[in-house]
């Protein structure tokens, strides 16, 4: 059917794609336009003033409260991405290389079932474990490892734990898919030539799966930096991240211009990281 189209045919084809295109334009592109406009307005004495200016962006640069949130977001996201990768890679590798072939699908399925717990509920479940009177402290106190309960909930450690739990499942899936695509011949050849298992891994398997790792890491970065729920439930009010500050502008102060400007900053950061990743991947392929 993909031949040269008659005029009449082309009109029909447009009819199929138009609903989705219009939907995307009206409810995705247009809201973004409204957001840009809103970020260029001002809010004085609780009233939104429709004068064009860059006050919101200037405020972002001048107030430590705002850019500290961005710094917190970046630190948190980088930590989460690295820890998740370090934990997920061996898991994916063991499932792909050590678990017998016919059990692999089951092993993978088991590793991602908790993925389908509701996002809000999952963070709450971690609170049950990490809270002052939660499971972890009860266990530590009972074994005498600590004398006083640890204050983990409402710190960055709790947020990292909640995030890492989620992304280990996601990354195990993507890294596993990557490892399975690898031809075993490369490793076999290296082993025949006398390379030990560690050397085979460091010089063959790891470099060949690096592009896949980068894609997974980028996915983690994007999902983590834009998330409000986990930091809000587990991290609490200390060391706010950017999405928390954005939500605060809306729910506490109804300051839409500021929230819009902060959202655009967040989008710019993500786009920048995307460009860096894409550039790195192109260089890697060209090599």
């Amino acid at each position: 059917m993909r031949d040269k189209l008659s005029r009449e045919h082309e009109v029909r084809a447009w009819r199929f794609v138009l609903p989705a295109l219009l939907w995307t334009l009206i409810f995705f592109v247009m809201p973004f336009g409204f957001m840009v406009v809103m970020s260029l307005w001002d809010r004085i004495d609780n009233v939104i003033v429709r004068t064009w200016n860059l006050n919101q962006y200037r405020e972002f640069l001048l107030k430590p409260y705002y850019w500290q949130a961005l710094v917190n977001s970046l630190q948190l996201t980088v930590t989460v991405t690295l820890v998740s990768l370090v934990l997920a890679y061996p898991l994916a590798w063991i499932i792909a290389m050590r678990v017998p072939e016919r059990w692999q699908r089951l092993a993978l399925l088991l590793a991602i079932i908790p993925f389908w717990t509701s996002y809000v509920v999952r963070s709450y479940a971690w609170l049950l474990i990490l809270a002052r009177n939660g499971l972890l402290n009860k266990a530590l106190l009972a074994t005498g490892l600590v004398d006083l309960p640890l204050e983990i909930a409402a710190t960055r450690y709790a947020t990292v734990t909640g995030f890492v739990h989620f992304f280990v499942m996601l990354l195990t899936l993507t890294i596993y898919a990557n490892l399975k695509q690898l031809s075993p011949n490369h490793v076999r050849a290296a082993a025949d030539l006398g390379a030990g298992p560690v050397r085979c891994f460091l010089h063959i398997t790891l470099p060949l799966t690096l592009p896949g790792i980068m894609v997974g890491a980028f996915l983690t970065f994007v999902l983590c930096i834009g998330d409000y729920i986990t930091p809000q439930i587990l991290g609490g009010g200390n060391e706010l991240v950017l999405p928390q500050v954005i939500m605060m502008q809306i729910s506490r102060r109804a300051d839409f211009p500021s929230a819009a400007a902060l959202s655009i900053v967040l989008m710019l950061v993500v786009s920048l990281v995307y460009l860096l990743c894409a550039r790195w991947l192109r260089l890697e392929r060209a090599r």
Partner: protein
Amino acid sequence: MRRQAGSWLSGFYLLLMYGFIYLPVTVLVLFSFQGGRFPILPFNGPSLKWYRQVLADSKLTDAMFNSLLVAVCSSFLAVILGFLAAFALARFSLPARALQRALLTAPLTVSYLIIGLGLLIMFNMLGVGRSLWTVGVGHVVINAPLCFAIIYSQMGAHQVNVERAARDLGASLVTTVWLVTLPMMMPSVMASFFLSMTFSWDEFIIAFLLSRFDVTLPVEIWSLLRSGLNPKTNAAGSLVFLVSVIFIVLMELLVFRRIKRG
């Protein structure tokens, strides 16, 4: 000897990670059967009283109904939009196809918070009130790209000949799509439908920003969280998890069994 030490280590690591992955769900479900007032040790159950409380709480059951309604309706629309666009872009050489594909999948790369906030600002400025309708609109925005991407990736060349045969035998384009393409694409259509359902069912931030009086279940659970650790929240959360698992099992049964047979 060394090999054996390695496999012990592998087994140990596997056990450790599965423990980590299952720890929160286990604690959640276990303490939903708690007998006492707090979901902390010691466990003094099992008791079903918190489930009874959840099912007797009309706010929660209303929210559950709202969530199902939004999930079914928004997923239905998302699948229709995604399927039609995937068909058009896979089968016709329309101008600017790469650009159209990029535009249709763009919402996948933007955080839900920003999509929700953009819609909120737009609806506010246009004077559209927040309701379940606006939540549904938001969920179609996030799910239609997913449906499009899944169905588009499955639109292979092998179905083209069957479609062409139908056309040669005199079927109109619409008839061909309805009676030939759609049945052939059913596995990926169903897969994207159920995936959309689970995402909509679980989605919090867009529903939180765009709803007002009628809220969905994750938003209602969010307000339960304010009461601190509470076995009732455990029970509600366990029920949400159960429904998600049902969606996934349905998908597995309806979609992947069919693929195996077909």
